[in-house]
C-alpha cells in the first residue's frame, strides 16, 4: 500500500509536468496540424535559461520572490524564442507539403539542441535549489515541497488555460481556427495572431514544465528535450491530439503509468511499456481517448 501511495504521488508529479509540456504540442497541432518537434528542445532550453537567470541575476538564496521572478523571466525568454521559431521556420511553410514543415521542425530542433550545447557545454548541469528541500513523511509516504508545488501550480495553470480557451473571445477564436482555418478567416479572425498567441502560451507552459523538470530531477543536459518531449507528445496523442483537456488527461495517465511501472515492474523497460500503452490505445481508439472521430471527407 505504501508503494502504491508513493508511486501515486510521484506519478501525479511527473504527470503534471508531462501535461504542461503536452499542452504546447497539442495546441500547435490543433491549429497548424504540425508536430512541433522543436517544442521539447525549447523545454530543455528553458531549464538552462532558468539556471542562467538564477545564477547571474540572483546568485543564490531561496525566497519565493526569486523563484517567481525566475519563472516569469524564463517564460518570457522562451516565449520570445517560440514566436521567433514560428516566424522563421514554420510561417514560410504554411502552404507547403506537410512533410516539409516536419523536416523544418526537425531542423529547428537540431538548431536549438546544438545551440544549448554551444552556449552551456555538453556536460550535465545541476539545477539550483530554487525551492527549499522540505520533505514530509506521511506514514511511509514521502512527499517533498517541490512535488506539492509542481502539482498545485500545474493544476492552477491548467484550470486557467481551460477557462481562457472555453470562456474568452480569444479562446473561442483559437478553437474556431483549430476546427477550420479558412472558415475562421472568413469570420474575421486573424489566424496569424492566433498562431502567435498559441506559440506564446504553449512555449510559456513548456518553459514552466522545463523549470519543473530542473527542480525535480536536478540534472539537466542539452539533449534531454527529445526524451521529455517525446513522452509529452505521447501524452498528447493518448489524450487525443489537438484536444486541450485531452493533453491534461493524457499527461496524468502517462505519468501515473510510468510511475507504477517503475514501482511494480522495473524501470529498464519503461519506454517499452510506454509505447505498448500508446500502441494499444491507438489500435482501439485511433484518435486518442478524447479525440474526435473524424469521418473521412469525400
Amino acid at each position: 500500500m505504501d508503494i502504491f501511495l508513493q508511486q501515486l504521488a510521484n506519478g501525479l508529479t511527473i504527470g503534471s509536468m508531462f501535461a504542461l509540456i503536452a499542452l504546447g504540442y497539442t495546441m500547435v497541432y490543433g491549429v497548424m496540424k504540425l508536430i512541433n518537434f522543436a517544442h521539447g528542445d525549447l523545454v530543455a532550453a528553458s531549464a538552462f535559461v532558468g539556471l542562467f537567470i538564477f545564477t547571474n541575476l540572483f546568485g543564490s538564496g531561496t525566497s519565493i520572490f526569486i523563484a517567481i521572478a525566475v519563472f516569469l523571466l524564463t517564460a518570457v525568454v522562451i516565449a520570445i524564442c517560440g514566436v521567433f521559431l514560428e516566424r522563421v521556420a514554420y510561417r514560410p511553410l504554411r502552404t507547403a507539403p506537410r512533410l516539409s514543415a516536419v523536416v523544418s521542425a526537425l531542423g529547428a530542433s537540431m538548431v536549438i539542441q546544438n545551440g544549448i550545447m554551444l552556449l552551456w557545454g555538453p556536460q550535465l548541469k545541476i539545477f539550483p535549489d530554487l525551492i527549499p528541500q522540505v520533505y514530509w513523511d506521511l506514514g511511509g509516504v514521502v512527499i517533498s515541497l517541490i512535488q506539492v508545488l509542481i502539482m498545485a501550480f500545474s493544476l492552477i495553470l491548467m484550470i486557467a488555460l481551460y477557462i481562457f480557451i472555453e470562456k474568452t473571445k480569444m479562446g473561442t477564436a483559437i478553437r474556431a481556427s483549430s476546427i477550420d482555418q479558412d472558415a475562421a478567416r472568413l469570420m474575421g479572425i486573424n489566424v496569424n495572431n492566433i498562431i502567435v498567441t498559441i506559440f506564446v502560451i504553449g512555449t510559456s507552459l513548456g518553459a514552466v514544465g522545463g523549470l519543473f523538470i530542473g527542480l525535480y530531477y536536478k540534472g539537466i543536459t542539452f539533449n534531454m528535450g527529445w526524451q521529455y518531449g517525446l513522452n509529452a507528445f505521447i501524452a498528447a496523442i493518448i489524450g487525443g491530439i489537438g484536444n486541450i483537456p485531452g493533453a491534461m488527461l493524457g499527461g496524468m495517465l502517462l505519468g501515473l503509468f510510468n510511475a507504477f511501472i517503475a514501482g511494480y515492474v522495473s524501470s529498464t523497460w519503461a519506454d517499452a511499456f510506454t509505447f505498448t500503452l500508446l500502441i494499444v490505445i491507438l489500435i482501439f481508439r485511433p484518435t486518442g481517448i478524447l479525440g474526435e472521430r473524424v469521418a473521412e471527407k469525400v
Partner: protein
Amino acid sequence: MIKKLQPIAYPLFFLAMMSMPAFLDPRWLAVATTFIIFTIVALSTDIVLGKGGMFNMGQALFFGLGAYTSAILNAKFGWPLLATLPAAILIPALFGVLLAGPIVHLRGDYLLVTLIGFNIVFIQVLQNNLGGLTGGPNGIFGLDVISLPGMTDSPQLGAFYTALIALLITLLVMFNLDKSKAGRALHYLREDELAASSIGINTRVYKIFAFALGAGIAGMAGTIYANQYSAVSPEAFDFVQSVLFFSIVIVGGSSVPGIFLGVFVMFVLPEIFREFATWRYFIFGFAMIFTMILRPRGIWPATFGKIPRRLIKEGNNGN
C-alpha cells in the same frame, strides 16, 4: 532533358563509384562505404515514405534487425556472413508485415509516432540483452567478413564493392517498382487513398507490401553494415538514425538522385567538416530549415512515370 541523361548518367555514376577506391585513403573509403549503405537505407525509407506516402520514422529498426540477424547467425551459430543474407532480408520483411499490419490504418502523424515507438522498444530490447543473444549495450563484435573473389587480402575494399553490388540491386528494385503494378498502386495511394480504394486498389495490402519491401532492403543494408564494421551495436540503429533517414528522403525530394544528394549533404558533409564538430549540426539545422523554405518539395523532386507531354495540361508538370 534530365530524363534523357539518365540512361547515361547512371552507368557513368557506377563507373565513377567503382574507380573510387583508387583515389581514396582508408578513412574516406570507409566513409564512401557507409555512404552507400546509408543510401540503400534511405532508398528503402523512400519506398514507404516517398512512394507510399506513409510517415515512416522507424526505418533504422529494420536496418538494425537485418544487421543483428546477420551478426547473431554469424557469431553464435557460425553461419558464413553471406549465407545469413537471405535471413537478414526475410526476417525484417516478416517483422515489417507483423509490425505494420496493426498500425497501417493510422493517420500520418500517429503512424510516425508509433514507428518511433517501435524503434525505441527495439533499442531497449537490444540493450537489455534479450535472451542473451544481442550482447547488451556493447553489441556483438568479431564477425566474419564477406570475401569477394580477388579481394580476400583487403576487407575494406571487399566491403566497398559488396555495398556497391547491394546498391545496384536496390536501384534495380526501385526502378522496376516504379513501372510495376505495385508501384502504380502505391503512387495512387499516396495521391489519394480514398480514390485509390474506390478504383479497386486494396490499400491495406499495398501499404503492408511497401513496409515489407522497405524492411527487406533495409535488412540487406544491415548485413552489409555488419560486414563493414564486423560489429553491431545498438546506438547505430537508434531512432535518431530513423529521423536522419526521414530527413534525407524529404530534403532530397524522394527521387533517386535527390536521395543521393540528401545522403551526401546529411552524412558526407558532416564528415568533411569534422573539425567544426561542435558547430556542424547547429548549422545543419538551419540548412534543413532553409532548404525546405526555398524548395518545399525537396532539392530534386520526384516525378512519377513517363506521362506524354501532350497529355499534361499547361502549368501542371505532371506532379
